[in-house]
Every structure is written in structure tokens, then in C-alpha cells.
């Protein structure tokens, strides 16, 4: 299982890498939405992407929209992990094609439970 962590903060990527790593995922990191798309075009296509919203170059919403426009990537599970927590933003992200939404700050348990909800049953305890 490959998870892609997309966040412009290296500290946040490090936190998420540890959490999903402990749940049994291989982890690849990207610092913005465009880097993530480039990695995927190079063949690093994850089963799940954890996506920040506010990032330089291409933001998380733009990334979700791009992934959803590509037929061959329709099976990728997309989970926003962002400090954007207004009701309207959550609705926008879901409408664009995100499956789940975690609000920063979060605990490791919250990530594990969301992954369980998304059907990554083997990974959550």
C-alpha cells in the first residue's frame, strides 16, 4: 500500500509519514499539488493521498480536481488533511471529489479511524 503525503510543511509531512507508516503504508511525499501530480505521472500512484489545502504552486483543491479529471486515477482515495475547517470548505472539497476530511490539528487516532472508515481495514488497529 502506497500513501502519498502532500503538504508544503516538512514538519507536517514528517508527522503524517510516521502515522501512516506505523499503520503499514509505504510513504511518498510531495511539497505541493503539482509535485504530487508529477510523481504520479512518473508512476508513483498511491492508493491514498493525504492532502493539505493551502500550498504554493497548486493547492489541495486544485490537486483533487486534477486527479478526478483523469480516468486512470479514479480508484485513488483522496483525504484532505487541512486547517481549512469552515463548513463551506468541507462541502467544496467533497464536491470536488475528496472522500474524507481531517481537520488540523488532529491526533494519530483520528487518521487511523478515518482510514478504517475508508476501507483500509487491515491498517487500522
Amino acid at each position, binding site marked *: 500500500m502506497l500513501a502519498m503525503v502532500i503538504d508544503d510543511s516538512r514538519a507536517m509531512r514528517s508527522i503524517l509519514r510516521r502515522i501512516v507508516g506505523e499503520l503499514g503504508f509505504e510513504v511518498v511525499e510531495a511539497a505541493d499539488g503539482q509535485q504530487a501530480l508529477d510523481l504520479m505521472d512518473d508512476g508513483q500512484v498511491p492508493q491514498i493521498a493525504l492532502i493539505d489545502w493551502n500550498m504554493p504552486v497548486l493547492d489541495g483543491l486544485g490537486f483533487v480536481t486534477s486527479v478526478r479529471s483523469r480516468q486512470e486515477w479514479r480508484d485513488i482515495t483522496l483525504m484532505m488533511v*487541512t486547517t481549512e475547517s469552515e463548513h463551506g470548505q468541507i462541502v467544496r472539497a467533497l464536491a470536488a471529489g475528496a472522500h474524507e476530511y481531517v481537520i488540523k490539528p488532529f491526533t494519530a487516532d483520528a487518521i487511523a479511524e478515518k482510514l478504517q472508515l475508508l476501507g483500509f481495514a487491515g491498517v487500522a488497529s
Partner: protein
Amino acid sequence: MNETIMLEHRDLEDIVSQVWTSLMAQETANAAPWESVASDVVAAGVAISGCWNGWVVVETSQQGALDLASTLFDLPRDEIAPSDLADALGEVANIVGGSVKSTLTGTAELSLPSVEHGPSTIAGLSEASLQVHAAWQSHPLRISVLDDNSKSTKEQS
């Protein structure tokens, strides 16, 4: 014109406490207001623009920022580079700023964080409309929510 920010002191304390307990598994305690800003202060700020315009600034000491980065990166302090320190404190400012932004009733955008060393150059920080003084692991911590009055005045006139 700026929307009035409905956030109360207690709310800002809660936000700060939630960030520290969830991301760092550390408790914050209330602390007395700073008498002066130490020369080794590190500040990270995000700007909010839209229905409300202003900044949310997180300040701590050099040692505090180092500890914070060490915890978030899960690395020993002597392996933390200056850029790691800025990244970690910037992310904390992003999260606190995002939580503040989400209490606004209108729409607004959050800037990417910027980090400064030394007494902050954002004018009037000590007179911020809303300010929480706290401490964690004996490190000083100050969170300020600051109206950008220049913007609101301009739009009013």
C-alpha cells in the same frame, strides 16, 4: 470593513491547547503577560484576508522553537536545521491561524506562513486585540490576533 471577530480569549486558549495536546502531546499552561519581548524571540505569522483582515502570530523563544521542531520532526535538537525550525513554527501558525479563520462567519483566505527572528516587526503586536500568554515545558508562548486597521480604515473612507 472588517467583520468583528467573535473569538473570545477563552476560545483562543482552547485552540492553542488543542494544537499542543494533539500534535505534540504536551500541555500548555497559562502564563503572565510578557513584560518585554526577548531578543531571541522567534515569530511565525499568517495573514487572514477577506471578511476580516489581520494577522495571527505565534511567538516563542529560540529554545522553544527548537523543542517544538524537535518534537514535530521527531529528531534530536542538534539535528534541527534553522529551516526545520522555521517550517515547524510556521506550520503551527498555519494551524492556529486556520482555526481562528474558521470562526469567522464570512469567507476569508489564509496566507502561507512567514517566520521572523528577533522582536517582531509587525507593528503594534503588543496591543493586539486578542492575546494569549502561555507556557509549555517552561518555554514562553504568545499568540496574538491582530486587526489590520489600516485596511479597514482605507475601505471605510
